[in-house]
């Protein structure tokens, strides 16, 4: 590197000094500049734009209507994820219908990038006596490579919408690493019929149907991990709340455990579905016990004279988060699943309750009371990070995690009546799921379908 001489060529003491300084500066800078990065910070509210081709119909006979229904459901489910936005087919430069899914089949990526597509979804379906077969392929158009290829068989009676949701949840996985949840269900409590009954709906709020119809008071639904049963609290047998099971699988429906004279407030399945944590109350204190799914083998977990409620299992089943008022006000604690080894988790706020452990184990969502209303916060199980997720001048309550740990459903009175809303874990994508009728509370997000 040569010394730069100022114009005129006269080397004065001053210019020499300046040159020396410049040399030092340049020497130091050249290396650093090579490494000086451009820092990009992600923008909010952006989604991948996806072109969804009409899936080729390999059935006999073919059905245009089925293909259309399938595609509409698929695009709706993709948008429900919050990750994708559809590109209207009128904008397509490439073929509207999938031509081939063969391994060697290529696509003309510029046809898709030119219309702003980040992704292309191709596929085919075939419905016959054997079943409902579907195959698809997802492309990253910018890099012009496929991200996922899958094919599976559903039973022949499956409707196109259900199959489409499965596909959409897989496409989410191709981009996020975790499945979407459009094919999951949410159980909740609604008084729309005049009584508090348990209802079940699709995760997007559609297809609401009753799970109980006993005209008493029913509350706190909780799914078995296989999605085949719901435990809930009900006054259906007298003036004392007892735990019942509603089942569409192997578990026996009806009363879960015999009454010992105490009220049974809430039952929560462990992550493998072998035992349930149950809250029992004698009127002045309450404790948490665990029982097997036949209501036998009752084991005490908490041993105190205070009120201890709201159990929530860690995903590995080794710990339970719960609420105790042992210090005079409800706070969240964590103990080992067999009892003992207790430690207090929440110290901020005078009133914290309703913990919900995320399926990935990273967070515990809970309610905290602020000026008489509840907000929803997230705390990590070590208590190091504690952040607001949903804040509002009205109450936001009863958080429940989606099985992919990316969303939370909760109940809010922000519109007056209580309705269910979902929000992403990072506080984005708030959406209302109910709103037709009644007060809708106590949501429980079900597991992925088998």
């Amino acid at each position: 590197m040569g010394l730069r001489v100022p114009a005129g060529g006269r080397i004065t003491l001053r210019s020499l000094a300046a040159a020396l300084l410049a040399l030092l500066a340049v020497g130091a800078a050249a290396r650093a500049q090579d490494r000086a990065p451009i820092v990009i910070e992600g923008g909010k509210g952006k989604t991948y734009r996806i072109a969804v081709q009409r899936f080729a119909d390999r059935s006999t006979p073919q059905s245009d209507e089925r293909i259309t229904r399938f595609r509409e459901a698929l695009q709706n489910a993709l948008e429900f994820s919050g990750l994708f936005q559809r590109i209207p087919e009128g904008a397509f430069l490439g073929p509207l219908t999938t031509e081939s899914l063969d391994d060697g089949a290529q696509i003309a990526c510029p046809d898709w990038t030119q219309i702003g597509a980040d992704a292309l979804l191709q596929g085919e379906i075939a419905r016959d006596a054997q079943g409902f077969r579907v195959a698809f392929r997802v492309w990253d158009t910018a890099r012009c490579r496929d991200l996922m290829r899958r094919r599976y068989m559903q039973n022949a009676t499956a409707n196109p919408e259900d199959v489409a949701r499965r596909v959409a949840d897989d496409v989410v996985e191709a981009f996020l690493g975790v499945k979407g949840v459009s094919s999951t269900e949410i159980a909740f409590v609604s008084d729309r019929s005049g009584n508090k009954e348990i209802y079940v709906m699709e995760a997007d709020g559609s297809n609401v149907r009753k799970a109980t119809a006993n005209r008493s008071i029913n509350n706190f639904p909780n799914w078995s991990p296989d999605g085949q049963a719901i435990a809930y609290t009900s006054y259906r047998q007298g003036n004392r709340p007892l735990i019942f099971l509603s089942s569409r699988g192997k578990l026996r429906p009806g009363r879960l455990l015999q009454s010992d004279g105490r009220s049974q407030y809430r039952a929560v399945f462990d992550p493998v579905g072998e035992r349930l944590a149950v809250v029992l109350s004698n009127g002045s204190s309450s404790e948490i016990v665990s029982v097997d799914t036949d209501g036998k083998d009752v084991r005490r977990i908490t041993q105190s004279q205070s009120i201890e409620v709201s159990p929530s299992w860690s995903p590995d089943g080794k710990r339970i988060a719960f609420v105790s008022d042992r210090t005079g006000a409800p706070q969240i604690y964590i103990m080992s699943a067999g009892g003992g080894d207790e430690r207090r988790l929440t110290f901020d706020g005078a009133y914290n309750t309703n913990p919900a452990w995320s399926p990935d184990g990273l967070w515990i969502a809970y309610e905290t009371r602020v000026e008489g209303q509840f907000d929803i916060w997230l705390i990590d199980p070590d208590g190091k990070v504690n952040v607001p997720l949903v804040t509002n001048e009205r109450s936001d309550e009863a958080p429940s995690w989606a099985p992919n740990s990316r969303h939370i459903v909760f109940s809010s009175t922000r519109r007056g009546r209580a309705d269910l809303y979902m929000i992403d874990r990072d506080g984005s994508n708030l959406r209302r799921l109910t709103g037709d009728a009644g007060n809708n509370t106590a949501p429980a997000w079900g597991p992925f379908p088998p």
Partner: protein
Amino acid sequence: MRDGQQDLRKREFRRFVRWSAGAHVAVLGVVMISPGFHSRFDASQVIAVDLVSLPASALAPSAAPPPPPSAKPVPPAEEKPAPPEPPKPKEVVLPKNPEREPQKPKPEAKPKEVAPKPEKDLDDLLADMRKDAGETAPAPKPVEQAAVPAPSAAAGAGTVKVSPEVLAWMRKAKLKVRSAWVVPPGFRRETLETHVTVELDASGALVGDPKITQRSGNPWYDESVVRGITKASPLPPPPSAGEWDFVFLPEDASL
């Protein structure tokens, strides 16, 4: 008597003001015609600015226990000793409403601290500073600026000399990449940082695949980054073809 003294003082004061004004004008005149004044913006000179060296926590929050409202969630990294238990058994009356769980006695809740609005993003502030500098600096005169904040200790601190042309290009490149990159929902509040090196030709088009030089720990996030910068190609024509480094941080969602 008193009036006379006041008049005298006023006259002295006016004289002082006139003298002072004259002196200022004179000094200003001397400064104006001196070569030093003009040469302050001389093309051959360079203003050195230290590359801002941020603590890693400023841009990529660490797992250390931050105050709750401003804290950013990070996956728990290490075990923390259990906080001391303050057991204080107390009799509590079960609430009458059977619909509520019996955990709700009525202590008056102390209003919780409300999370303050997150401060303006440091990088945005620096971007603004760069913008100002870029627009006020006369075109042919190189100005040295804090080019970009060092996102981590790894990027290091130092003095970086960046010409306005490079600065302007970096700004344009940043805009293009930022608009092309989709941060998957759910990642925005996580502590993720991916470093990528791309090779650009003179037209700004990517040559070959982007190289990840530092992974975030979340392969799906890294994928989104590679997808984003690939989609951004071609970038605006760079000052020089060759390798350029990018760092991708998820946005801190404001709640």
